[in-house]
């Protein structure tokens, strides 16, 4: 049998078998180190490489390019979970397509070989392929047009700035705080070994833990409805908000911000955001109207303690001045 055809069958049939029979095994409810979708994907790639190696299959570069491109598509569309947003999917696929192009154009010979079937199809040497192509193209264009003009009721996406630049100072309860130099007054006697006491708040041992405990109480009285009892932004009300409440576990939120920044955000809430951060769409109230200054600082202390992050400091990065 034609080796190109064998290679094609190895890919298509293999993918069908893997996707329908093996994929479900690797996606159990309890994800393990072996039984997970990414190991499955690596197995599939290994299957392709090994089969081609054992059967000594050397498909033409155009088909190799197609395989490579399809593997990327399969990964981003079906393997990567949870599904990624459309904008990111497109971006990733553009990257992957560029990579595929670099692969097929890495030297003039492979590129010539890649172009050959395309040119032959266009000039009519591959009559059958030309008929399929010329039939499929208008249908695809028509379908694309239909999809584009079909009314959609989704909210438009917006480029919202999540961490806007804070003002130089903020006034809370009549006192002005310069954000660059303000520190949490309750961050005292921190020994950096507080993780050992997790999840038990041994408030009697350290003054620091006492403040953390108080902050935790305030958090569970006020904040956890949205920010979640695990501080992961998945509180019971979180699903009705857009933007969703901040996920403090994520390394890109409080972990990379100064405590003073959080203080400003908590005190002023959604309405205190600058325009670039769409203050009209944030549901967070200005907590200065509900909590006193000390309570705000304690909540912040608790958030850092619970997540294990350290607030950002700029003390060691001074300028030459």
């Amino acid at each position, binding site marked *: 049998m034609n080796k190109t055809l064998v290679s094609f069958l190895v890919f298509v049939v293999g993918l069908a078998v893997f996707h329908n029979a093996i994929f479900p095994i690797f996606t159990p409810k309890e994800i393990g180190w072996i039984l997970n979708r990414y190991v499955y994907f690596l197995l599939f790639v290994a299957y392709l490489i090994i089969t081609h190696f054992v059967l000594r299959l050397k498909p033409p570069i155009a088909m190799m390019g197609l395989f490579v491109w399809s593997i990327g598509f399969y990964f981003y569309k079906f393997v990567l979970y*949870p599904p*990624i947003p459309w904008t990111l999917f497109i971006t990733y696929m553009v990257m992957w397509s560029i990579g595929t192009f670099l692969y097929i154009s890495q030297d003039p010979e492979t590129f010539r070989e890649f172009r050959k079937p395309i040119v032959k199809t266009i000039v009519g040497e591959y009559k059958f392929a030309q008929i399929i192509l010329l039939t499929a193209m208008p249908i695809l264009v028509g379908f694309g047009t239909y999809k584009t003009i079909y009314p959609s009721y989704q909210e438009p996406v917006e480029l919202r700035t*999540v961490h806007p630049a804070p003002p130089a100072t903020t006034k809370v309860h009549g006192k002005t705080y310069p954000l660059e130099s303000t520190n949490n007054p309750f961050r005292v006697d921190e020994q950096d070994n507080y993780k050992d006491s997790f999840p038990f708040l041994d408030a009697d041992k350290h003054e620091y833990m006492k403040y953390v405990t108080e902050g935790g109480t305030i958090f569970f009285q006020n904040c956890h409805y949205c920010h979640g009892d695990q501080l992961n932004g*998945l509180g019971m009300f979180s699903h009705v908000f857009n933007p*969703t409440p901040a996920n403090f576990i994520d390394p890109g939120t409080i972990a990379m911000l100064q405590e003073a920044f959080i203080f400003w955000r908590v005190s002023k809430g959604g309405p205190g955001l600058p325009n670039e951060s769409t203050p009209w769409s944030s549901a967070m109230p200005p907590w200065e109207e509900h909590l006193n200054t000390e309570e705000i600082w304690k909540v912040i202390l608790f958030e850092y303690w619970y997540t294990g992050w350290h607030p950002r*400091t700029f003390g060691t*990065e001074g*300028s030459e001045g």
Partner: protein
Amino acid sequence: MLGKNKRSIATFSLGLILAMAIYLVPGMTSDAIAKEVFAEQVFAEEAFAKEVMAEEAVEGEGEAEIEWGQDVFYKDWEGNPLKGPVSGFPAPELGESDYNNYEFAPSRMLLWVANQQHLYFGSFVLAVPIFCMIIEFIGIRTKEEDPVMSAKYDRLAHDLMKVSLTAYSWTAILGGILLFTFITLFPGFFKYMAGIFRPVMHVYALMFLAESGVLYVYYYGWDRMSEDKFLKWIHCSLSVLLNLIGTVLMYLANSWATFMQAPGGIDSQGRFLGNIWHVIHSTLWNPVGVHRILGNIVFGGGIVGAYAAYHYLTAKTEEERAHYDWVCYVAMFIAIFGLIPLPFAGYWLMKEVYAFRQQMGITLMGGIMAWLFIIQAVMIGLLFFGANSYLHNGMSRVKGSHRYMKYCKYMILLLICTFTMWMTPHTIVMTPAELKAMGGAQHPVIGHFGVMSAKNTAVNLMITTTILCFLLYQKANKKINVPWATVGNCWISAIFVGAALNIIFLGVYGYFLPANQRVGLSVPQVTTTLTTLFAGTAINISMFKDSESYGDIQWGTQSKVGTYAIFLLAISFTWLMGLMGYIRSAVRLFWHVTEVVRDNSVDAYTLTIGEAGKMLTFNTLFVWTQFVVVFWVGSLTGKKAVAKAPEGVPVPAQQQQ
């Protein structure tokens, strides 16, 4: 490698590394040196201030008192603002009468276009002498061993200088247009800047005169000074002088922009405090300078490369094809050498921005400019793709390269994976339905790529991969004969594997560290990458001793894809340069001079991403149109010269065989 002579590659690489070191070493050590010098200076100033104050106290009333102001940036030993005698007027509160405008376009846009065009051309004319310096030096060094190649280098340097000469006048004209635009449309602000920078502006003008003088002697004395060996060295030294003056010119002009962004040497009212060096040497001056020099080299390389690529594609004769293919290669070689350290200089600049005002740093990286930074990430990726594509295609025409071509696909895979990591945004654009499907604003897997630890790891791996590709290119046609070849190869492998492991380890480790310590990890990561560059290149070149060649590079056989990659590089870089310039300038938001002179014009707003993109594209197209004209003008004299003295044109090596 760069032709027939196998030593030329070593000389060429050495020349480039030295040239790079000349720029990088002061940049890297300037902090430490500057601090020391600054400490002494501050001490002297404080002593002077005390002396003057004591004198005033003794002299008593009736004497004119000197008013002392506090510097907005510089601090003394104890961290208090540095004091200086008030020597200027306070910054004006600008009103409607301080701004002029035309009906057809906002003043800010006109100034932007004028500024950007001048900068593009300035960048090109500063870069070309650097090229010429290196290429002429190599030409002189190889004269005895290979006169044909030497003549080829000399001709290339001369040709480049010819184009640069036309571009030089063009730059001056654009500078004049910029100055008039500034004076006429922003008279109030210009008056303030002129008040502060008065002596700098005069020195700048004088330096421009010196630059012109040296440039004309350098160019018009080319043939005459080539006759004698000693004179030729003098001529080459002139190129060093030319570059030194050019660098000083650029640094002086930079001081205006860096002062606007992060002022120093004035008090909070904007009054000059008597020390012009403080005003010039504000906190961003050094990083911007180094970043611009490297950027100029890449930009210049891109333009020369694109020029040569165009001629290569349209060449009528084999000889022409061979020549321009070779020019493409030299230009790309230089551009890639500049491209590799460029991101590091960028990091240094951003670090200083954060140190100056955290707010400004957040506005750039996480705030209103963050989306532009994502676009920047994509553009940088394109540059690396273009560079690697050129190297792969270039390598394929070298005899003996089949030994290494099989690794190309793995390098591409690595590039794509790291690039995917590099450009994954922390905040993803999505619809509410997608947000629900994802279960939160952050993706549990790719969400980890949104922070700096992942980005640093990715960019360092991308650069390391490009360096590896470059080393393979270097040795593609070499049959290594040194007895320690195996040991050498093992060392190179160990350096690269070790570097990759170290970069990945540091990246992962960063997730477990507080943010301020995590920032520090970028230093060992960068050091690791630079180690691969310097140690890898050094070992690689050492192994070429007594090597045999599988055959010369077949100049004139570069593939079209590889040639188009050069256009991609050149255009992407032009656009990227405009983008980053816009970001750096626009981060001042509604200030002319940050926190000192407020922009009260009707144009004091931040553009939407789309509008900014249109302006950048316009500037890119506009400048390339001008480049085409300048190159065309340059080619007019070129044709004449060839017609007059065809014998003087050296024939490429392979044509002679």
